[in-house]
């Protein structure tokens, strides 16, 4: 009897599974669509107010005008080149600053002693405005790529640093005792206990860092540059070419969302062991 029921259940399961799969796919599409509700509503209102002449196109060009400009820029304005350059800069700065943030965060989180020595200084540096340090960067590093990447790195450093630090400090001390009993060496302690446990926070820091890197790009490309999306925006602003400004803004927004989504995919994979509230 038990055998029979197992078989019938198997059938139920397999058919259920098929239903589940298509259901899941459908679910994914619905979820994606939900995310588009807001942007689309905004776009429609925007286009309409523009079309009805409620807002001057100099201040807020219509989405259609922005699209035209975008196509135009792609075809004739080396938009792709600009984008590539910006991407490299953002990536370079992010990798440099992010890695440092992670490493220093681990060191500071790991040893109270290091924390007491280093953290106060870092917290002071955190609120120094980028615009104010640009001259010093130029003084020390010139205005080449080095300065730009360092500027981006400066921005990307802090969120990862702070989040890594917090992540480590929320490691359950009970698990820490286990690690001690099993005589984990320092490397094992970091890779098998601290990093996995801090992972949710570290990944969050990663997402914030990527965002900040992308934002710092604008400031960096103000500095002796004649390429890049940031440059494109600021240049267009000088000449009130608002639709180019918006093309730039939208590239930033889209890229921000895309990079964020990539990290989220990793997050899902890496954190499948979690037993947390899912909303």
């Amino acid at each position, binding site marked *: 009897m038990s055998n029979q029921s197992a078989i019938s259940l198997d059938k139920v399961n397999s058919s259920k599974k098929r239903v589940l799969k298509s259901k899941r796919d459908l679910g994914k599409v619905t979820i994606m669509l939900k995310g588009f509700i807001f942007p689309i509503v905004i776009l429609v209102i925007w286009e309409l107010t523009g079309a009805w002449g409620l807002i001057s196109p*100099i201040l807020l060009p219509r989405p259609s005008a922005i699209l035209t400009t975008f196509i135009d820029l792609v075809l004739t304005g080396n938009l792709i080149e600009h984008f590539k350059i910006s991407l490299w800069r953002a990536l370079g700065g992010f990798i440099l600053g992010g890695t440092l943030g992670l490493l220093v965060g681990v060191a500071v989180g790991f040893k109270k002693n290091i924390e007491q020595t280093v953290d106060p200084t870092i917290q002071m540096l955190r609120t120094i405005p980028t615009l104010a340090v*640009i001259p010093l960067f130029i003084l020390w590093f010139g205005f080449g790529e080095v300065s730009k990447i360092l500027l981006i790195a400066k921005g990307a450093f802090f969120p990862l640093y702070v989040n890594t630090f917090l992540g480590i400090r929320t490691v359950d001390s009970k698990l820490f005792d286990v690690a001690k009993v099993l005589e984990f060496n320092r490397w094992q302690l970091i890779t098998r206990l601290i990093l996995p446990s801090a992972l949710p926070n570290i990944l969050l820091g990663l997402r914030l860092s990527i965002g900040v890197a992308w934002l710092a790009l604008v400031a960096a490309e103000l500095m002796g540059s004649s390429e890049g999306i940031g440059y494109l925006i600021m240049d267009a*602003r000088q000449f009130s070419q608002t639709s180019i400004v918006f093309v730039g803004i939208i590239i930033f927004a889209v890229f921000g969302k895309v990079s964020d989504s990539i990290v989220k995919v990793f997050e899902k994979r890496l954190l499948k062991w979690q037993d947390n509230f899912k909303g």
Partner: protein
Amino acid sequence: SSNSETSSKAPNKEIVVNIGVQGKTGILTYARDHKYFEKAFEKEGVKVTWNEFASGPPHFEALASGRLDFGSVGGTPVIAGQSGNVDFKAIGVTADGRKGNSILVPKGSSIKELKDLKNKKIAVAKGSSAYNFLYMALDRAGLTDKDIEIIQLQPDEARPALDNGSIDAWSVWEPYVTTAVFQTGAKELATGEDLNINAPSFLIARTKFTEEHPDLTVLFLKTYEEVRRHYVENLDEVAKEIAQSQKVDVKIIETVLKKSDPILSPATAEFSKAHQEQADFLYSVGGINKKLDTSKVIENKFVEQALKELTNK
């Protein structure tokens, strides 16, 4: 369809005039600090508000959004604003701009004349009057932008770059020129005067405002002219005052003020031509993406009337 309060014609509603200023040494800044406009407009029951900008271009964003009515800017931002279809009028010339821009080289530089700039790194802020000036200066020396390396830098960033030798020359406007000369012994390689380049600066106004309140526009210009006269006549005192409030060496301010040489004049044929040349030039080097008829934004009638009323008085 502007949402500014000033566009309201209802007499019972208080009219507000929004004036933009930039820099520390201009007439408008001086007037703001001494409340000249407040006094003049008070009689008409009009309120004055001030907005400070870091440079010319933001004026046009503010104009376009209806948040600004008057301002004083250089020639190049005016061209940029026109190319961006901002609805404004240039209602008076405030300087011929001959002494406003210079190309600087650091102390002890081997660059002695414009020709030496070949293959050098030169910093300039795109869209500024110094940008035009650099191109025209190169043109006079028989060079083009292909012969040099242009580094896009805002003045705040260019200054340390000049000091630490990462650039060879810097095309910039006042007060950066004088400050650099005084502080680091930088040399002026060429000035507008040397090259006989006119680059008129303008007072600008929001078109809608001038249409709705022509009288206030004239009043604005009259007040401006009165302040200017007082300012020019008491240049030493003004310099002292600014130097004190800004905590800067008085010699720097004096030099800057003397060079600024403020006037108020209609856009004469000579000025108009110079301005048109600037626009054509910008177009030719790709700074703007269309050919402009600059006379379209020039509106002389207010300044003419203001000056007439003042002489009649």
